[in-house]
Structures are given as C-alpha cells and as structure tokens.
C-alpha cells in the first residue's frame, strides 16, 4: 500500500502544481486589470502605475511566475491587491466558514441521500418510490443558487424563520450565552447548508437506490434470504454494506461539487467563506487571492479523492491498493 500511497501523493503534488501554473497563466491573461478605481470614479493612471510597481506587476510575466513559485516554496501567498492584507490570513479567516458550511452540507447530503435511497430500494416500484424518484430528480436538477434564493425568500424574508445572510447576528452575538451563540450560528447556517445539502442529497439518493437494488439482486443476498434471515437484516447487514462502497467513493467527488457550489451559495447568503472570497477576488482581478484559493481548493480535492480511495479500500477487502 505504501508505494501506491507515495505514487498518489506525488501525482497529487503534480496536479496541484499544474493547477497553480495554469491558474497563474489564466488570471494574468484574462481581460481586466487590478487596481482599477471603484466603478464610476475617475481613474488616476499615475497612481495605478505606482500600485502596479509596488505589487510587482511591472515585471515580465516569467519573472512574476518565478517570484510566485519562490514565495510559494516558502509558504507565502502574497498580499491581496484589493484588501491590502496577507492572503494567507484572508484564507485562514474564510476557510473555517467554508469547512463548517461544506461539512454540514456533506452530512445532510449523505445522511438524507443514503436514507432516502435505502427507503426507495426497500419499496422499489411502489408509489412512495416513484414519488421520491421524482422528488430527488427535481432537487438534483435544481441550480444551487436558485434553490438558495427561493429558500432565502420564503424562510428568510417572508416567514422570518431564518436570517437572510451572514454567519452570526452582528448586534446580539457577543451578548449571548454559549447556548444562544450556538443557536445563532445554527440559524445562520441552516439555509445555506440546506441549499447545498438538498441538491447533493438528490444525487446521492439516486445513486444509493441504484447501488442497493443491484446488491439486492446478488447471489449472497439470495442465500441470506434462503437462510431465513428477516428482510430488514438482509437489507441492512448484507446488501447495504456492499451498496455503500460506491457511495463512499462519491465522497471524493462530492468535495469539488460542494466547493464549487459554495461559490454560489456563499454569494447568495453573504456567507464569508472561501467561495465568496474567490468570487470577489475574480471580480477585482485580485491575482494573489485567486491563486491562493484555487491552490487550496485543488489541494483539498486531491486530498479528498485520496482519502475516499483509502476508505473504500479499507471497507472493501477485494480492493488492493497496489495498482
């Protein structure tokens, strides 16, 4: 297993390096310039030129690239053009918020998706299965930003059940006791996590249903039934264990989905996470922040994929990590 793991880590590093290089080229070649004045304000070319010089943008692109790699090798991500603070600190502030959102959404996604998928497989072709098939297809087809806007409108603006944005109440939070603080965070988390989680759960449920149905047709399930085991035991102890393996491999794929979905959801709910940070940075042509967030996300996706493979192998003795 160790040689496999080392090969995968080396490949992962190469992928992250390639992403960093491609992103560097893409952001510098994309139309638009950093340091433009706010929209509708007169520009001062001399001031912009001084800023460009100050941040090293007057150097040829290969020189900038080498400097970027050099800084990266020392663990430095540079200073934000638009927020004038270290990129690492900005990412450090935003990352926990995205981890909280994506983690909760992932939990919702898999808990709901697996439960619904199992429920459907156990009642295959009955009315409840057909209804849930349509419902999960509906959620799976929804654009995350649209679902977010609808939830925000209904449960935030109309019913006032949940806040319409942000991560905590800016006025009350500090004065709340610990329980109140937790409750306040959960209220703010509910709608964005539901938005991401529901869309993901739609896909997971369909996947889980199909995997479980396939497992239920296997010989060992027939044997289990022939031995007289109760249907519940057949489903949970025999078929589900096998049917969970492909779903576990979905974990690795869910991470990129959650992180890209977070860009839109964080924007809709003004959630100060990595996605919103990246979206704002792209608009402002804030190269160091775009590069920093891309690097982090690509590393997370590579790592997620690796972890999913390891978990799958651990759960399935038929898989040997030697290829």
């Amino acid at each position: 297993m160790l040689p496999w793991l080392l090969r995968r880590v080396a490949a992962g590093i190469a992928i992250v390096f390639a992403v960093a290089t491609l992103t560097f080229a893409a952001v510098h070649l994309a139309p638009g310039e950093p340091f433009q004045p706010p929209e509708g304000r007169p520009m001062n070319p001399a001031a912009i030129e001084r800023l460009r010089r100050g941040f090293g943008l007057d150097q040829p692109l290969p020189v900038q690239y080498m400097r970027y790699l050099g800084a990266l090798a020392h663990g430095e991500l540079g200073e934000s053009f638009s927020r004038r603070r270290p990129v690492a600190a900005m990412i450090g502030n935003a990352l926990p918020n995205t981890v909280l959102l994506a983690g909760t959404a992932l939990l919702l996604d898999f808990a709901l998706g697996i439960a619904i998928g199992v429920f459907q497989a156990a009642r295959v072709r009955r009315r409840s299965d057909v209804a849930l098939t349509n419902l999960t297809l509906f959620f799976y087809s929804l654009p995350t930003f649209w679902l977010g806007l609808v939830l925000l409108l209904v449960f935030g603006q109309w019913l006032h059940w949940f806040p319409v944005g942000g991560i905590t109440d800016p006025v009350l939070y500090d004065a709340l006791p610990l329980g109140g603080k937790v409750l306040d965070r959960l209220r703010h988390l509910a709608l964005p996590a539901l938005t991401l989680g529901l869309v993901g759960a739609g896909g997971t449920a369909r996947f889980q249903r199909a995997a479980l149905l396939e497992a239920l047709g296997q010989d060992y399930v027939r044997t289990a039934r022939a031995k007289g085991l109760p249907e519940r035991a057949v489903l949970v102890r025999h078929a589900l264990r096998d049917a969970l393996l492909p779903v576990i491999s979905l974990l690795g794929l869910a991470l990129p989905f959650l992180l890209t979905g977070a860009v839109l959801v964080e924007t809709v709910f003004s959630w100060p996470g990595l996605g919103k940070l990246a979206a704002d940075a792209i608009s402002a042509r804030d190269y160091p922040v775009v590069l920093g967030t891309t690097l982090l996300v690509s590393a997370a996706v590579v790592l997620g994929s690796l972890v999913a493979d390891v978990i799958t192998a651990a759960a399935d003795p038929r898989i040997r990590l030697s290829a």
Partner: protein
Amino acid sequence: MALGILSAVSCSRRGGCSGEYCGTLVIAGTSDLTTLLPPVSDAAIDRDVFDQIFLRLADLAPDGGTIGDAGFVPQLARTWEWTDPLTLVFHLDPRARWQDGPAVTAADVVFTFEAYTDTAIASGDRTALSHIASVTAPDSLTALFRFRDRYPEMFYDAVFHMRILPAHLLANVPRGTWQTAEFGRAPVGDGPYRFVRWTQGQTLELAADSTFFLGRPHLRRVIWRFASDLNAAVTQVVAGEADAIEVLLTPPNIKRAQDAGHLTLYPYAGPTYSFLRFNLRANGDASHPHPIFADPDVRRALVLATDRAQMLQSVFAGNAKIPPGPMTQQWKWLWVPELVIPPFDTAQAAGLLTGRGWRDANGDGIRDRNGRKLSFHLIVPSSSAVRQQYALLLQEQLKAVGVEVLVDPMERATVDERLHAGAFDAALESWQTDPTPTSSVPSIWGLGGPSNFGHYGNATFDRQVAAATSAATPEAAKAAWIAAFGTLAHDAPGIMLFSVDNVAAVDSRVADVRIRPDSWWALLWTWRIPPDKLNERDRVGG
C-alpha cells in the same frame, strides 16, 4: 427562534442601555472594505467609514457650494482666514483629541499634506492638491496653506480631499508600506466614532466617542454588515436584519422597502449620472476615425432617435431625471432652463441619417452606406441590471430608425479594459462625481482627460471648462459651465441618459436622519433613536 435569541439576550443582560445615547445602527453595505487609511483608498464604503473616524479641517455644509468658503462648516479648524490671496490660515480647535489621547496639532496637518502628496503612497487625491505649494505650522494650533495660484475652489481643495492623520502613529511607518499597513486595519482617528473591530467579509463595528469635542454622538454603536450585492443588502434591511441602506436604486427595491412597513424612505440628490459614450475613433485603433461616430450628424441623429423620457419611466418609474449635460443631481445649481434636453424626434433623426448617406439599400431594415451597415456594438457591464435594461431599450428604439445595436454585456473588469484600450464602439457608463464638476468633467470629456475614453476633443469646450474652473464668482462659473455643456450637447459625444434620485431606507425608529449627497453617512453622528423607541437590540451591551 429569533424571539428565542432575543429572550436569551434579555435573560443574560437585564436592563441594558437606556436614555438618549443608546441605539445601534446596522448599515447594509454591498462590499467589504479595502483599508481604513484614508490616503490609500477611494472606495465608496471606505470613504463612508472615514467620515466617522477621521475629521477634515472643515467640511461641506449640507447644501454648501464649493466656490469660496461660505459653504463650509468648521471641523478640526475652529476658524480660518485669508492673510493674502494665496495664503490660507487655519486655527485648530484646541479641544480636538486623537482617540488615543494626544491633542490634534498643526504638525498633524503638515504631516497629512506630506503624506497625501507623497508619490510613494499613490493617493488618488494627489492631483487635486497640486495647487497647494506648501503647508506649514507656525505653532501647534495654526496651519498655514500657501497656494501656487488663485482660483475659486482653493478652500475646497485645502479641506475636502484630506482627512487629517495622526502623525504620532504614522510617522514611523514607511510610506511605501502604507497600502498594507496595520494601521489601515485598526485605525485611530479623531472623529465621532472610534474603531472597534473589522471582521473580514462580515462586519465593521464602530463605537461612539463619548468625549467627541463637537458633541457626543447619539447612536452608541454603528455596524456595517457586508452583503454580496445590492439585492442582498436590500433584503437584509427589508427583513429587519439591518437598519439602513444608502441607495435602493431601482423601483422594485424601493417598493420592497415601502412594503416592509418598518422603514422610512429618504430621497436625496444623487451623485451619479449615466450615459452612452460614442467612441469617435475606430474600435481598437485610435489612429483612425470611427466609421460611424466620427460624424457629428450621425451622433446627433442617434440622440434625437432616443426616447429618454420613456426609458426613464420604464426603468426608474420617475425616480430619476434626464440630465441636459454631464451632470448629477447634487449640482442643483446647474439644473437651469438654459440647458435644454434635445427632443425625441425620429423624423429629424431619420432625415439626418439619410442626409449623411445612410439608407436602407437592401431592404433588411438596417441602413447602410457603401456596403457598410449602420450597426455597432454596445458594451455594458453585466453587473448593472439597470444599464442592461437601458441597453435593450436603446437597441429597440434605434432599430426604429434603421440602426442596429448589438448589445455585449461583459464583466466590469473587461469593460474597463476595453474602455482604456479604446476597443469599443459605444459603451454605457455610469460616473460618480465629486461635489463640484471641476474634477470629473475635464477628466471624462476634456481633451486628454484620463477617462475620456471616446476621444472627444473640442478646444472651445476645453476653454469653456477652463473658464468655469477659474471663474472668480459662482455666477461666472455657472455661466461658463452652461456654455461648456451647451457645446457638449451640440457635439453629442454621448447620449446623456439618467441622473438618479437616490433613495435611502432607514428604520423608522431612527430620528433626525439627514443625508448629504456627496457623503451619505457624514452626518450620522447627529442621528438618534429616541429613548421610547429603543428596542432590545439597541440596549444590548449597555
């Protein structure tokens, strides 16, 4: 659930703040801040916060003019005098203090001028200060400004662009590092509010300085809450999670605020105007004239073919005006009957186009000349829903006179790049102006102006603008501006489309709300929440 949280607060803090000096105002902002070191940033939201933390020597009165000093009220300077036509002396208020203790002195004023004019800092206000030769401090409470030349807005330039900085905290910070200086993330000022904290991407909190020498602010806390965009910010205010927003902009947003029930709307003169700019040079090649827009008759025809009143009604439902020149509503003194808006006259427009040889030879509904269709691309930032609406309306209206408009929505950064490179036919632009036309008009329409992206040039217009900026009296300046805008209207380098009436929404429990068109929150420290209208959120932390 929300009630549960409020109950938790009540239980944890019974009593809380009460009386005249309580109240928390949450402002819904549409973006995070850049830095809180004034010379370094020109972003609107940063300037809003500067207004609370840093003082000027004097500030514009709510309806003050920029010519002479009559339109200004004292801030750090208690009085001022002209000792000769080129020398302005300010006498500082001895009560003024930095929030960390020391007195504000004339040395701070000298230091501030040096900082704003230092090339290492790259301040956007440096050019505006170029008329000032020196600033000296004869004593600790006297600052002496020497000007290079005499002009009507000397006082405005001396006081409006600079917010006085604490020399004792910044003198040792290398100027080359001010863009990213720590001070910009935790500033110490001399204004009505002191910095409390700034949580990246979430909130900025200020607390009233109860010892503020011009009077204790009534609102105890002011919190900016950063939303993703205007719609998200309006939603926060409508949902009661924020108390104020300075601009609602569109009729749907205004209706949402009206329907909310707990908000009061405050209309005020807007500082922006929007227009379609023609590129008089070929798209991407400034060495050649534009095949369509180099001809002033064609440009005039397009102005005549545009029903601006109808567009204004469709998009703004009356909450905007058609500017007769490159002007915003905050320059009230320039909205005079002498400046006439060209009529909507498609017959005259068609006649002009036919007269210049543009006819529909092949019967496809689009005019052409020598094999070239009368067709152009119009670039518009995709971030502006209003301008995209206008682009589509223009497309429809100009089609009626045989002109094809190809609308190209694109990201704002791309629009900027295309404008700077001259790589466009026409663009829908919006400009936010200063309290005076002096800075923006030459920059946007003057020959060689850094924002004159359409390459418009007319020596007569430039002379008239120069006469306006150097006029000795407000009346003479006004006459010169009217003449200049008349020239511009005749040359038609663009179609002036709308100048918005801004509408702010503020929670109805807030009293004494006054909004200055050029600095929305500058008078915030005079707003208050009457004791009988304080709610649980106002009392928290008292």
